[in-house]
């Protein structure tokens, strides 16, 4: 969306604030400076304040405070007060004599977390174990490329798992070579991940530059200046 350079209020003010913030953060690329530090702290403060405000307005007030303290049809659920009291137990960590009370809550949360993690692991990874068993022989309606892919998956899986097999020293030559192949395959995947990381970072830089050049109308102004 291209906005005219002349526009100033209210969209314009927001836009120019964005320009100032972007340039201030980019100034770090030259060197560390107080302007960058100021805007960095401003951003942290804003983000924290915004998150607190949203947490209160969208979570705590409608789902806890209003049902507990409100007077409407949904109000009067006074027992929700215990959620607050139980939450306060976390802070007994700071009082040596009462610190054991915080461990009650932490223990419960650890139990819940462990149970959920187990369920999560099963539903996340069991289909992948099943998917690793792919047909490797022709004649099952598979194209040559699909068969090739299936072999690549199997051989990569074996090689990489062998590389991470640390239960005993890898003395057998076949095991050593398979582990080495696994290491090379891992290096290739790291290269792909690096390429994608560059792509992500550059896309973000491109977004900011697009904002500075096009959303502010700077490009249009330059074009007009040169009669285009």
């Amino acid at each position, binding site marked *: 969306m291209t906005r005219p350079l002349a526009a100033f209020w209210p969209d314009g003010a927001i836009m120019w604030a964005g320009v100032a913030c972007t340039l201030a953060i980019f100034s770090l690329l030259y060197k560390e400076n107080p302007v960058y530090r100021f805007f960095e702290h401003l951003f942290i403060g804003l983000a924290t304040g915004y998150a607190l405000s949203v947490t209160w307005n969208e979570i705590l007030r409608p789902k806890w405070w209003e049902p507990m303290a409100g007077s409407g049809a949904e109000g009067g659920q006074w027992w929700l007060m215990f959620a607050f009291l139980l939450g306060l137990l976390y802070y007994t960590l700071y009082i040596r004599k009462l610190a054991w009370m915080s461990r009650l809550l932490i223990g419960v949360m650890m139990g819940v977390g462990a149970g959920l993690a187990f369920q999560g692991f099963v539903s996340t990874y069991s289909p992948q174990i099943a998917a690793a068993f792919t047909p490797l022989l022709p004649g099952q309606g598979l194209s040559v490329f699909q068969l090739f892919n299936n072999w690549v998956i199997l051989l990569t899986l074996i090689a990489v798992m062998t590389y991470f097999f640390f239960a005993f020293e890898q003395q057998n030559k076949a095991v050593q070579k398979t582990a080495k192949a696994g290491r090379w395959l891992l290096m290739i995947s790291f290269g792909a991940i690096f390429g994608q990381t560059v792509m992500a970072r550059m*896309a973000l830089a491109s977004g900011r530059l697009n904002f500075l050049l096009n959303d502010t109308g700077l490009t249009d102004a330059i074009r007009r200046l040169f009669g285009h």
Partner: protein
Amino acid sequence: MSFWTRRIIYIVFAVALSIPLVTNWQVTPDIGLEARQLYAAVERVPADKIILINQQYEATTIAENGPQTRALMAHMMQRGKRFAIIGLDPVGPGLGQQIAEELAKKYHRPYGETWVNLGYNLGTAAILKGLARDIPGTVKKDINGKPLSLFPVMKGVRTAKDVGLLIDVDSTSTYAVWLAYFTQPNQVPFAVAPTSVMVSDIYPFMNSNQVVGMLKGIAGAAQYERLADAPGQGYKNRMPVFMAHVTIILLILVGNVQEIQRRRKVDAEGAA
């Protein structure tokens, strides 16, 4: 590396990225299999089911996740698909709301009729397990504090069985939580629109059919824009990324040539 070397590299990158933006250089993207599969998954969602779009990003990755969201919502609004914005992050649902409001004017889709915003929901596994059992009972109100029962778009939407597709627009790897506690246990089709950094993490899940489609960063956004015939920021920001890749390859070559020359010089000095 001298004080100026790094700064000169930054300037080279700024110029390389700016050229396509200033000249408005755009090339029609080839559509990848992953984007095509996601498009087909959206098309397959029947009228009696809703699509959930999890907005799991902040302003820092809006250059990638913003165009992805815009392209997906444009497609859904064109087709009149019902969708609900949701987030396990305080900022994401607000950013999604801005994009949806802008598109709603273009496609004449008033709030509450074909789309709604369920806002920020605190907690991960617990809230997702709650959503799977009872969506209106877990969320209760929209982002503006109005009861969900007021909105026609939520009619008949009660449990995970009424969700035809979940799309996670993500910069924080929250896809794993949705997969573990919502989509996989309830057999809800699942797609991901991650930032480019996360793409390689998603492929194993596509191989096992746990993920039915994917938008790979800004390139995926551009591909989906083409599929939905809604060109936007994806088209615009793709070419600067291409220029950045070309610049990086050139810089790697220059760096290697310099290093080879330096070694030769050292060897020659040693021999002398």
